[in-house]
């Protein structure tokens, strides 16, 4: 079933005000293009969930899209704070729900497997248990000792960016695979964006690499460079300069507004955004190929 539609249509159809959105990708393949499209379409009152909100949610919160954030690390990786999120939390203008990385990922794993909760061993993080009543304890029915539990998370929408997919939504992804699979299976609807749309035969040539089956995907969008300033392993580099630069931009509300006006509202889609970044940036983010050794599945 061909599910190829433009990203603008996918967001329009599948992301509604008030939705809980999980934009997947642990540092890698973060779907910034979809984030920017949600901003352009003026989505409101979203509950934004990610392990590390990263700049994508910093930008969406600045644009007024969110009423709440669910997270496990509120930092600009390797740089410092996520200033906009941090200020909103310090001022009390944004609701929050906090976990550790494993707590967050366990929520998604439970959601993906259709379970009500996921247990994990104790970590003595009793202050976090106190501030987040969704982190609870049960007694292991076999050993009698206490384990920690987190409830399943079933986002309304998961947005997953991959290197390649076919038009049915069967998706290959490699490099840091983070929580893409868990969030996709946990979510009620999945928007898949891909650097490349390939023939089904390409997917079938390496079935071990297929992380997501097409039948759980609602929309497939061909969006090259969707991850910038994050990256797609093998396709382009992480724009570390941008991450460092955001630290400066996000110091001032003026500068953030200017940024959104120029780079989000001022472009119609990711293609125009990438073009606008210019050839020197394109060149700087280019990566030399490093192919894996081929595997032989055998012609059985």
């Amino acid at each position, binding site marked *: 079933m061909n599910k190829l539609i433009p990203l603008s249509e996918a967001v329009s159809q599948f992301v509604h005000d008030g939705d809980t959105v999980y934009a997947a990708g*642990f*540092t*890698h393949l973060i779907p910034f293009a979809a984030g920017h499209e949600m901003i352009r379409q003026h989505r409101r009152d979203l509950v934004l969930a990610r*392990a*590390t909100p990263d700049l994508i949610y910093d930008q969406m919160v600045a644009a007024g899209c969110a009423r709440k954030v669910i*997270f*496990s*690390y*509120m*930092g600009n*990786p*390797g*740089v410092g*704070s996520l200033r906009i999120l*941090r200020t909103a*939390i*310090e001022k*009390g203008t944004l609701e929050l729900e*906090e*976990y*550790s*990385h*494993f*707590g967050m*990922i*366990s929520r*998604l*794993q439970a959601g993906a497997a259709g379970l009500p909760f996921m247990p*994990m*061993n*104790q*970590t*003595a*993080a*009793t*202050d*976090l248990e106190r*501030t987040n009543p969704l982190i609870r304890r049960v007694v292991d029915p076999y050993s009698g*000792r*206490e384990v920690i539990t987190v409830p399943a998370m079933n986002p309304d929408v998961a947005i997953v960016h991959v290197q390649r997919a076919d038009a049915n939504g069967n998706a290959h992804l*490699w*490099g*840091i*695979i*983070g*929580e893409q*699979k*868990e969030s996709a299976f946990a979510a009620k609807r999945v928007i898949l964006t891909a650097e490349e749309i390939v023939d089904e035969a390409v997917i079938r040539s390496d079935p071990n690499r297929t992380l997501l089956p097409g039948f759980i995907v609602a929309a497939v969008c061909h969006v090259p460079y969707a991850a910038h300033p994050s*990256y797609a*392993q093998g396709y382009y*580099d*992480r724009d*570390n300069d941008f*991450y460092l630069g955001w630290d400066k931009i996000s110091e001032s509300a003026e500068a953030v507004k200017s940024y959104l006006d120029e780079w989000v509202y001022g472009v119609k889609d990711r293609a125009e955004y990438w073009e606008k970044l210019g050839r020197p940036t394109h060149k700087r983010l280019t*990566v030399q190929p*490093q192919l894996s050794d081929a595997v032989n599945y055998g012609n059985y």
Partner: protein
Amino acid sequence: MIELTYSSSELMIVNAARLLKNGDVVFVGVGQPNLACNLAKRTHAPDLVMIYEAGVIGAEPRRLPLSIGDPTLVSGALSVVSIYDIFANYLQRGNVDVGFLGGAQIDKYGNINATVIGNDYAHPKVRLPGSGGAQEISAWANRCYIMTPHQKRRFPEKVDFLTSAGYLDGLGGRSVAGLRGKGPVGVVTDIGFLEPNDTGELVLTALHPGKTAAQAIENTGWALKVAGDVRTTEPVTEKELQILREELDPAGIYSKSG
């Protein structure tokens, strides 16, 4: 004999590297822990297995990674698994020998705060990044090391918020709470080493050359006890500095400060 000069970051990185044993499976963080692990691998611990919480095992980064999810960690690594797998099958299962920890506050029992400054979680004076992987690393790695500059504001008697567990209220607290790993067995600072005594309280056990116990006491927010047999750490060697400055961090991004 040439007198070597080095930054306090380089001093801490060199000392932290020496704590790793050959064959250790280490959960690596970005920045100084990353440099310490790579230095150890190039000196006395060639069989060190480096794991990054992004799910990468046996990373051999060609360039210095800015973040824990940098693409350079993946190219040429031994294995890449999901986040769930790395925390469950590796860390929770007990396959990780060493974890590195850090945070805004470390208290006298080695508990760490990386969540909020002040006692009001809902309206924090300062909102810090939060746990990330630290909550589980501190609980489940076989042993942990903390690397931090030795500054009084970083060493309160009790943390405002307990993000990662040290010895909780004292030794024995960890087993009562059901934590599998030994906890923070050493804190490496730019003055010396703190290690837990038999009640889980961090005491001064070593000083770097040229540093004094008085300096350590002055820069600690509780009445820091000094071990009876405080040792002097082995001086930084030219070889260690060469590897750090020429191979690992030539731009001095993580090793120059201080």
